[in-house]
Structures are given as C-alpha cells and as structure tokens.
C-alpha cells in the first residue's frame, strides 16, 4: 500500500517540529528518513501513527485520505510501528503484549491459546524462536525488539515504521535486523526506516529523504557518499576530528580493579572489570548501549555500590565512598542524561552551578548562601563557557540542550579535578556545542586530568580517545589505540575478544 504524506506541519508552542513535509513510500520499498536528533523525524512518525495530530497536511494510504484520531485508527488502516523505546509492557507475557488492544476473546474471556498460536506462527515465518509465555522483562533487548515487530505484523501492517531501531543493538543484531527488513520489503511491505546513522541507510535503503530542523532538505540515493549525506543532514561539513596533541600520560590516577556490579535483579552488569586511566590521557569506553557503561560510571561516583572489586583514586580506595566524598576527592562527573541526573530544570543557571558545592566554601557561609558571590561566579562561567542565555538567573529548563550541557560541563570543570568521567558528553547537543565541549575535555586532559569518556557514538570515541576500551556484556573485551579502525571496533562491540 502506498503511503503519502503531504505538507505535514506540526508545531509545539513556538517550535515548528515539522514544516510542510512531503514523503512518499511505495510498497516493497525501504525508505530511509535521515536526520539529526531533534530534526523532527519522530514527530513526523508520531503524526503518521496517530499519536499526535498534525496542524496541517494530509496522510494518504493507497490514495485514500486518512484522519487518525489515535494509534488505533492508524493500526486499523494498516500502519505498524517499531518504537525506539519499545512499547511493550514489561510484566506481561509475549502473548499478552501481542493481543493487547486487539484481543481475541471467547465471550468476555481472553483467548490466550489463539494469541500463543499467532506468536508462534509469525515467529516461524522469520525463523525467530520466541516463547509466547515469557515475560518481556526477562527477555534480552534484541528479542524484545522482535516481539515489537511480531506485534506490528500480527495486525497485518502493510506500512511498517522503524524508529531508530538500531540504537540498542550490536552490529551483529543490526545486520540481522537489516535482513528482516529486506525480507519484509520483498513481501511487499512499505517500510519507513528512521535513523541518523549514515552507514545503515546506505546499506539497506532504496530511497533516502533527509530532514533538518523540521523541513525536508533533500532526497538522495543509497549510492551517495557519507560526506554528501552528512552535509545534507547537518547543513555543513561535519568535522568530528578534534585537534589535539599526542597525550603525555602521567601516573595511574583512576584504577578500577576487578570490579563487579549487579543490578537489582542480580544481573552482573559489570563483570570482573579492570581498567586504568592515567593522568593526562583520555580513555574512551566504546560499546552498545546497555552493556554496563552506565553502571560503571555510576559506581565510580559512588551512586552504585559494587558487589566486589576496588576503585582507587590516586591510590586511595573510594570503592565504598558516597558521591560527596568522591566529588571532594577530585572527580568531575558529567552524567549521561543531563535532564535526569545533571540539572535541576526549575533552578537558575547560578543555582545549578553551585549544585555540587552546596555545603561550604565558596558559596556557603554559616549555613547561608552567599548570593553575591554566587552571582559573580555564575556570570563569569556563563561568559567563559559561552552559555547563550539572557541572564545567569534564567531557569536552566529554558535553555537549549547544548547550552544546558555547557552548564553541566562548566560546573564540573570549575572544580580542581584529578579525574573527569564524562558519559555521553554531547548527546542531543548541536554541532557547534559539540566542538566546544570536546575542546574543553581535551583542555582538561592537557591540564593533567585523567579523563574517562563513555559514549555509544563511535565517532565521538574515535575523535577524543587516546586509548579505547570496548565494553561488552559487562566486560572489557579489549583496550586498543585511539586510531583503531571502525570495523575492528565494531567486531569487538559484538563481543569478539581482540587477538592481541
């Protein structure tokens, strides 16, 4: 069935998320929708799926104009979606998730047997092995995604939207997903593939539409080069190469010694991991999201207590220290999710800048906050870190993502550091701010700070790191030089130990 979007416009307050977007997807075609984070891809798909209503524009399916009031309408019309954050209920079984919203019943009672049969039937078509009675929360991420696909197919979707489906997958799982997508295409399904990863687009797409800042900026064929696509996507040449001198590493500053961490369910998310970061070098931790990087970073700060192993800071054991002591010992911490863990949106920039120094000097005297001192400091940092804001007393929530992140970086780098742990330091940040933040991190290294960068963006790891440690299933599968080729890193991210 042919999908046609005509002139879709969607605004949120003053933000125009989609600006007169046209898009056509033919049956038996994989149409990639390429764009940066925040370009408006997900908004467009939410409009298509009935989760949002467009302000203007038309949706046509097989030539018929559609009016979706909710996802139910879209589903009935034959649109299926594999969501970036899986829309599965963790405590339900596979079969229960499959039938939710479209329940087979006998009288008022659910017909579980027929739902089970449906799971097995569709699984068999693609060679999946899925237990219909397994609870979602007990399944690995890759399998959960397959349940999402089965769920869409069980409703006879003829247009299937994949929203950033590879973010949580290893390169191998990604390859398998690509072959599933081709299989679906060959069976006549129209596929929309939303992504910001150039390599995947060129590998699988039949046609490519690029959007930027809510507008379609061009179409491209899969034969286009990476550079051409990237230029379309960001509007100018991407230059993720950071100018930096060779590292001059000093003493072992951060030492992780046989660290093991369990999550609340007992999964060993970090398993017997050892790693050393020296003063004046940047060690990057590469890996697919969800392989223990988050927990590792949180353990260094003292937010998570390891099951066993030691964390040494310049020789001092801080394994069981609370965050306060770790911060005081000279650790800077840029959390991977700034709005969740890094900032308090309703606080001002100034208040956020003193967040990790709320106990004593320089901002607190006799239990009282020194307003004048804080204001002076905030004005200075806003200037130094190029935070674009009308005033340091502006609420942080009103700043753009890049400027918010600069506030976090400014706060962490304004203390005397021995170690900087930076998780996803530029996630959701505009290109200009990325360059700025990267330069600050390199400057910290040159000043003798031991830097640990955790990122799921391989480009970022490659641009910043002096050494790269690849993490897989809670272990470090190898530590390699910063200029290791991408293909090699990809294999390691899939769990292949490096032949030293």
């Amino acid at each position: 069935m042919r999908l046609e979007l005509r002139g879709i416009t969607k605004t949120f307050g003053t933000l125009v998320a989609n600006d007169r977007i046209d898009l056509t997807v033919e049956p038996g075609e994989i149409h990639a929708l390429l764009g940066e984070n925040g370009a408006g891809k997900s908004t467009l798909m939410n409009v298509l799926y009935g989760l949002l209503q467009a302000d203007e524009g038309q949706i046509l399916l097989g030539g018929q104009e559609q009016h979706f009031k909710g996802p139910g309408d879209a589903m009935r019309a034959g649109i299926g979606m594999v969501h970036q954050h899986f829309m599965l209920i963790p405590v339900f079984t596979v079969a229960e998730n499959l039938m939710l919203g479209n329940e087979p019943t006998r009288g008022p009672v659910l017909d579980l047997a027929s739902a089970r049969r449906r799971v097995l039937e569709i699984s068999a078509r693609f060679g999946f092995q899925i237990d219909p009675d397994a609870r979602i929360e007990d399944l690995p991420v890759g399998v959960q995604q397959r349940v999402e696909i089965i769920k869409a197919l069980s409703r006879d979707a003829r247009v299937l939207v994949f929203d950033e489906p590879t973010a949580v997958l290893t390169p191998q799982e990604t390859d398998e997903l690509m072959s599933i997508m081709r299989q679906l295409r060959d069976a006549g399904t129209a596929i929309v593939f939303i992504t910001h990863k150039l390599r995947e687009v060129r590998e699988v797409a039949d046609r490519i539409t690029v959007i930027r800042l809510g507008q379609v900026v061009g179409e491209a064929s899969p034969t286009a080069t990476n550079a051409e696509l990237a230029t379309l996507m960001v509007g100018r040449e991407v230059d993720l190469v950071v100018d930096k001198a060779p590292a001059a590493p000093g003493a072992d500053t951060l030492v992780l010694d046989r660290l093991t961490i369990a999550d609340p369910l007992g999964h060993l998310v970090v398993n017997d991991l050892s790693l050393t970061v020296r003063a004046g070098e940047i060690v990057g931790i590469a890996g697919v999201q969800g392989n223990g990087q988050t927990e590792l970073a949180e353990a260094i700060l003292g937010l998570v207590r390891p099951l066993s192993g030691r964390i040494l800071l310049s020789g001092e054991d801080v394994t069981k220290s609370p965050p306060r002591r770790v911060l005081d010992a000279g650790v800077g911490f840029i959390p991977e999710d700034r709005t969740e863990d890094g900032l308090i949106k309703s606080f001002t920039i100034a208040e956020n800048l003193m967040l990790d120094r709320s106990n004593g000097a320089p901002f607190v005297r006799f239990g009282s906050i020194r307003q004048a001192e804080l204001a002076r400091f905030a004005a200075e940092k806003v200037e130094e870190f190029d935070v674009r804001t009308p005033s340091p007393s502006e609420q942080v929530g009103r700043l753009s993502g890049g400027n918010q992140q600069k506030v976090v970086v400014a706060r962490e780098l304004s203390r005397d550091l021995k170690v900087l742990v930076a998780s996803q330091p530029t996630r959701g940040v505009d290109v200009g701010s990325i360059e700025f933040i990267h330069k600050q991190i390199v400057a910290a290294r040159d000043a003798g700070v031991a830097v640990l960068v955790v990122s799921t963006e391989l480009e970022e790891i490659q641009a910043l790191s002096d050494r790269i440690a690849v993490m897989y299933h809670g272990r470090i599968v190898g530590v390699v030089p910063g200029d290791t080729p991408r293909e090699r890193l990809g294999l390691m991210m899939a769990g292949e130990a490096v032949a030293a």
Partner: protein
Amino acid sequence: MSAVPPVIDAGQPSRMNAALQRILNGNWLVGIVAVVLSILVGSVLIAVTDSGVQAAAGYFFARPLDTIAAIWESIAGAYAAFFRGGIFDYRAATFAEGIESFAESLHRSTPLIIAALGIGLTFRAGLFNIGGRGQILFGAAFGGWIAFGTDLPYVIHPIVAVLVGAVAGAFLGAVAGALKAFTGAHEVIVTIMLNFIALNLLVWALNPGGPLRGQGSSPLTPPPPESSLFPFLFPGYSVTAGFLLAIALTAGVWWLLERSSLGFKLRAVGENPAAARTAGIDTKAITIIAMALSGALVGIAGVELALGETRRPFGSSIDNGVGFEAITVALLGRSRAWGMLAAGILFGIFRAGAVQMRIAGYSDDIVTVVQALIVLFLAAPPLIRELWGVRPDGRRKAAKA
C-alpha cells in the same frame, strides 16, 4: 510537555493572548476565583437546607419573591454571623470589643500556621507529610506531659513543653523519613498509618491507669498548670504568645527554604532527587531531616493546641482536624513561608467565624466544605481556566470548533 527545547522561535503569540495567559496563570486571580466560587457553592448549600427557604419554596409559584427573600435572609444571616465571629463584631459596644473577633481568628490560626509550615516544608522537599494528625497528637501528649508532669517557672515551662513536643513530633516524622530513605516505603502511606498508631497510643495513655490520665471519669489529661500555659498578648484578647511564635517560625522557615544551604539541598532533592544525588547531596539524610523538621513544627502546633488554645484537660481529639486542615493551608499558601502565614490567618478566620455561625443556628460544617472546595479549585488552575472558556492545553474552546 516542556521537553521541547525552544530552539526555533516561530513568532510570538498575540499580545492579547499572552496577557490572558499571564492573568490566568497568575496565582492571585486563580486564588480569588477559587475563594469566590467556593463561597458561592457554600451559599447554595446554606440556602437549600434552610427551613425558611424550604417553606417559602413550597409556594414559590404563588409568591416567588418570598423564596428569594428567604434565600437572601439565610445566606446573609449565615455570613453576617461568620463576619461577626471571624473579623469584627459590629454588634459590640466598643471597637475594642468588636475587634476581639479578629484576635480570636489570629488565635485560632496559630496552630494552622505552624503545622502548615511543617507540611509545606515537606512539599518543597518533594515529600508529602500526611502525618499531621499523629504528630500533633504526639506533640500535645508530650508537651502536655511536661506541663502537668513537671514543676517549672513561668515562661520556662511552656518553652520546655514546646521543645519536648517538637522532639516528639520530629521523632514521628523521622520514622517516616527513615523508612522512606532506607526501604523506599512511601511516606504518604507510612504517615497515614502513623496517624492511627499515634491515636491508639494516646487512647491507651488516656485509659484509666494510663500515664496521661487525669482524675475525672472521662478520658482526659490532668489540667495543665497556669505556669505552663502560653501567656496572652493583650489582656482581654484570646491571642497568645503562640502567634508571635508562629510569625517567628514563619521567618525561620523562609530563611531556611530560600536562603540557607540546607534549604537549597532540600529544594534540590524535591525538584530532582537523581540530580541532587549525582551532585553529592545525601538525599537520604535530606529526606530524614525534612520529615523530622516537618514533624517538629507540627509537634509544636500540637503543644500550642494543648497549652495555647485549649488550656484545659484534653483528650484524644485535641487535633481537632488541624492536621488535615494544615495540608490545605500549605497548598493555599503554595508552600511559601509568608504565603502559608497569610493562608493560615484566612483559615483562622474561617475557624473563628464557624463558631459564631453555630451559635447563630447554622451548621458550621459548611466551613469545612468551603475550605475543601477552595483547595480543590486552587489545585486545578486549568479547571478555572476551563470555566473561563479556555481548554486545558491553553487554546480557546472556539479555536477548535
């Protein structure tokens, strides 16, 4: 909702529209509309249950004016009594006597203000202390125990009672805080349960032979001695030194919340506990401290109820609904120290006015209804906006149709 970063500015909304938004978002108009609407509902209730109105309504079609007159009479009578009791008694011989009503209102507002300060403090820390009743009972019990159990000089006696009551309330608050911090038990559930545990403990202590039981046949404490009572501020007026204490505590809570390092951490934990924890703030300690401070303030309100307001032997109903009413005061005051002082005085007027309404033959429970309605309307500015003809998402109703 606010997840959308304001990267692109697609022109300002029209000036008229923005002004409307600002007025409707502003607290003061919402507050006034809430109060007016609530009083309107209260008036309807008074009118329909009034026997004179019911009688006149029986021959409404014959003489409709009678019904309207009866309605006016019942409502005007009720609110006149309310005014005489809560603000100024215009029937009194002198101004000094007339203003006794307002002094009484200040007197009755004292425990509300102090308890609301405690509950508002937890709101700011992202916590919800519904344990006001239990903490008041604990404060009153232990403060009372100091009053009739020890022999201390004037001035010192109530001060010691206040301190001991504060500690007792703080203990109960800290239990909820500690359970929240260390086991994740929801403080709402725990404080509700602690209310009943405290109530049963007090009932037990007031049983014959119990540690707080007085001489009489009813389950009441012994009378507190004169030395332990809160002194009156002016001869002939009921307002006591407790009201000065309430103002001092308001100032203290203002400094704590808006100016101190502890308050900064408390607000940080309230707004975003994960970020506070990542910034090295000990969220568990802050949770316990906030609940303990809150319990201490509410406990002081309990002492005030026993030794400032009641001044006589008291039983297990000493809290007199203050524990829950203080929640509404804290909400009305938007958890800002001076806002809670003002809201407390307003509700003090309600409490004093209700007494006069009862004397005048009206049911004083209507005051509780009006208070609850005010908070309901206040809690939902979108509701008021909707009554105004604007949809919850800020668009005019007409725009969609």
